[in-house]
């Protein structure tokens, strides 16, 4: 938090589907330890934004820069050689290195983020093995530790996610994403599709892990209650544009844009 440079810096970013923009003129900076919620209804462009941030979609306009050291630099993660690099200029090898070491992605559907027929331990251990861990005992111990942190009983370590409930699958997915302690995690509606009680438990878990690890998170959600519970800042999107942004409780308590007022007034009071 005390670094004056953001971890992720987005300037006027946009993506076009044919002659129509999925999202456009999106700008924000994200610092370590910050959770940014992107809220909006279906078709608002929030998923397109997540797509370009995570390089699943091309950036047609503007820029997305990430703070890292050049591959040839000796700096490494903590090195002084870190600079804000334009993601589109990085090689595929470099981007994949970032996915292995610095970034995570929690999918709405756990089947997209897990190997459903590999054991929970194997799923959580894979990022370690991908980063050169070659000691079975250490890999397993770390996987056990992380399954415990996401509240999966130790005796389930050798069971496959295919045999798990929806909530457990999401927790395994979170463990798999956090085991190598990334700096930036993208989350795409991680709690929707779960029962309400399971949702609350998962949100609480995400919130405490994010705080403990000092992660930066971009979480896409249609649920303002989710944004309220775990995010520091919120971007409200409509028709591909950011129509309001700021401190989450200010956006929700004192919304300025007509659309945000409408969204906020539509929340069911709990």
């Amino acid at each position, binding site marked *: 938090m005390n670094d004056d440079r953001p971890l992720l810096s987005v300037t006027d970013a946009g993506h076009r589907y044919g002659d129509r923009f999925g999202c456009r003129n999106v700008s924000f900076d994200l610092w370590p330890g910050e959770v940014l919620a992107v809220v909006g209804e279906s078709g608002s462009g929030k998923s397109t934004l997540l797509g370009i941030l995570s390089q699943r979609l091309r950036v047609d306009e503007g820029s997305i820069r990430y703070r890292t050291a050049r591959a040839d630099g000796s700096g490494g993660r903590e090195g002084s050689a870190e600079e804000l690099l334009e993601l589109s200029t990085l090689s595929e090898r470099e981007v994949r290195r970032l996915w292995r070491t610095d970034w995570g992605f929690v999918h709405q559907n756990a089947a997209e983020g897990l190997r459903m027929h590999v054991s929970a331990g194997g799923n959580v251990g894979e990022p370690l093995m991908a980063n050169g861990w070659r000691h*079975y005992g250490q890999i397993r111990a770390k996987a056990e530790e992380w399954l415990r942190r996401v509240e999966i009983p130790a005796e389930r370590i050798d069971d496959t996610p295919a045999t798990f409930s929806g909530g457990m699958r999401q927790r395994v997915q979170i463990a798999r994403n956090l085991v190598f302690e990334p700096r930036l995690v993208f989350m795409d509606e991680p709690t929707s599709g779960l029962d309400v009680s399971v949702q609350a438990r998962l949100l609480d878990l995400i919130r405490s892990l994010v705080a403990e690890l000092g992660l930066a998170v971009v979480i896409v959600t249609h649920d303002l209650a989710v944004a309220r519970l775990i995010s520091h800042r919120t971007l409200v999107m409509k028709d591909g544009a950011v129509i309001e942004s700021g401190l989450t409780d200010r956006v929700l308590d004192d919304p300025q844009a007509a659309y945000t007022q409408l969204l906020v007034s539509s929340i069911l009071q709990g």
Partner: protein
Amino acid sequence: MSAPRIVYNEGYLDEQTKRVVRRALLKGVAIPGFQVPFASREVPMPRGWGTGGVQVTASVIGPEDTLKVIDQGADDTTNAVSIRAFFEKVAGAASTTRTDQATIIQTRHRIPETPLVENQILVYQVPIPEPLRMLEPRETETRRLHALEEYGLMYVKLYEDIAKYGHIARTYDYPVLVNGRYVMAPSPTPSFDNPKMHQSPALQLFGAGREKRIYAIPPYTDVESLGFEDYPFEPQRFDRPCEICGSTGVYLDEIIIDDRGGAMFACSDTDYCERTAQQRTEQQSTDTKEVTA
């Protein structure tokens, strides 16, 4: 008998095709363990019966060569006999069952027990060339993983084995790292034979006909079987000797000998077994003679 109605080109394949295959082989030799795509042709046997191996052999064989073909370890199975006969006919090559007399050995599983030497070529018939296939079905993705040397996934497979069985249970097609760079599938070769690939004086060529891939290990190349620091690779072991020739430290087949489930264990390498047994008999008769004298 009248003259044959069709005259085949030497080695059956036409010269253009052989050139294509040889180019793929040269590329494979230049990048040990890397899977080179090639335009796999029809050969007169069904895909999955060794068509890749046959195309590789056809592209490197000449009339001065001596060919040995083994299926499992045996020279006398239908497939081995047919392939040998095929090349006698279309390449004019001599054939043998003796490892030490062959210049080219085509195999489906085994690496012969008799150590290979320089100038020998071992041709493997490969059903599935992609070691990551079972974990990552997308070919585009596995090629990228190879290109970027991302082999974490391979270890996931080994991890799963240890978690399930307490050891790496894989006994054939055990993944290897070639020349410190590419992870490679040794085809259905038993892990018992993996150590023979390492620093072999012979040239090892791999052909996958159905999958249209060729790869190679040049002579004297490092071939390391993958493992964990605390669970290193361990080749299969057999505690007993061959019941025919008495050899130890060889790969044994279980042979059912009666209808009551009785079995014996004997060398899978029939050539090695026969010659060892023969030597023993000669040795015994010499001993007997000496005693008599």
